[in-house]
């Protein structure tokens, strides 16, 4: 695995075309995912810092647990000081 960078933040993103609304993500990462009335995920859009290990772990569970492989974690690196 190597050393994982713990600076920066991430957002969970969904490919809406692949998503079929199984709802596993809302079970696995309730702090990031809510479902709408049709069972499709509404994801938290503001970035979560990577230092928030618990949230990141559940995001990874959600990503791995999605039956359609529709979720992915998008990392946002911190801006370098100029």
């Amino acid at each position: 695995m190597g050393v994982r960078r713990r600076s920066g933040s991430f957002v969970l993103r969904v490919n809406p075309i692949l998503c079929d609304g199984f709802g596993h993500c809302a079970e696995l990462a309730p702090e990031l995912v809510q479902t709408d009335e049709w069972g499709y995920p509404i994801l938290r859009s503001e970035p979560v810092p990577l230092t928030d290990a618990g949230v990141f772990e559940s995001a990874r569970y959600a990503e791995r647990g999605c039956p359609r492989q529709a979720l992915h974690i998008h990392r946002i690196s911190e801006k370098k000081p100029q």
Partner: protein
Amino acid sequence: MIPPNSLPRLMHAASDRPLTLAQHEAAFASSTSRTSLLDELEASGLTGRGGAGFPTAQKARLIREQRGHNKFMVVNAMEGEPASHKDQTLLSANPHLVLDGAEYLASMIGANNIAVCVARDNPSVVNHVGRAIHERTRRSLRGPKLELHTPPWRYVAGEESALVHWLDDNESLPQYRPNRPHILKIGHGPALVDNAETCANVGLIGRYGAQWYRSLGTAATPGSTLVSVTGAVDHPTVVEVELGTPLRTILATAGADPDPQAVLLGGYGGSWLDGSHLDVAYDNESLKPLGVSTGAGVIVVLPKSACGIVETQRIVHWMANESARQCGPCAFGLPALAEDLSHIAHQSRDPRGAHVRLVERCAVIEGRGACRHPDGVIRFVRSALDVFANDFSNHVRGSFCNGTRATRHFATVPSLEREEELVWE
């Protein structure tokens, strides 16, 4: 050559037959070779005419910087908006001007294929374009390869990723693009997609230069544009106007109702504009403070006798049916919006609840599709909630306006097809 300050430009020398190549070259004068077309295009300040209004030069530059031997220039004449007829009019008047522009753009980005996409439901335009391409290939086989493509006519089939998907894989379905700007590809070749009217404008800029082009229009939005005016008008027309013309003047040329309740600008994913704002200049810069845009150049005039909610409901119902049904929020959300609107528009048990649900669902669905189709519908519904706020509160209280039971409707909506009959490939 067309004198700098005059209209028509795009419809120059138009008659009821499309111009042949010889007639076209006689009318527009043969093209002079310019050293740097892309800089000229950048100086002209041309923005896309397909709806988004993105600067054409910036888009072309992005594709030019891409690697690839097999780039594509795609001319989008799909015209998904039922109320828009501009591409059809342009291609039946002068297909060669559009092809000129496509060739200029192809040379800018280094493309060796040009794909002209016309919906197959419009056979006369397909014929005109086919004949024009044949004329060109008979004259010379040099330059990029010209091809005519005829995807099925669907609202979202004209969306750029859906169009590229069709050219790539024969399916008119939008693609998921998480990171913008996204380079659309056909096979491995990057593709530049531009509207037919944009290409025609590029054809003019390539001939006469940026300075000539800027002699019409405002500083921020130069040039002229084609506008389709329908609804409560004497004669539905496509007119070419200078950008920055007052909206009232445009409506007068089509013989529209001088005192309308509202006008729909941009298309069915556009917004309603209250009838009191008719003196605004018709260009994106002046329309932006009012929360509307020129979009695809559609104007639908709604008279005082009509019910705005019923018209909105009919359009949303059709737009919901035109969803590609790929993304859940769009496939389930848009029919739900149409349902709520019909509960408000017509007699129902709980119009108040429907109104609350409508507002909530707009917030839930927004921004959750792969393409901008649901966002367009939501912008449209929100503008209706805003412009027809009085009517909405009346309907919710149970007092319906006179237009509710009228049999005449003003926004043209194609007949609905059943879901299994929709053709996507």
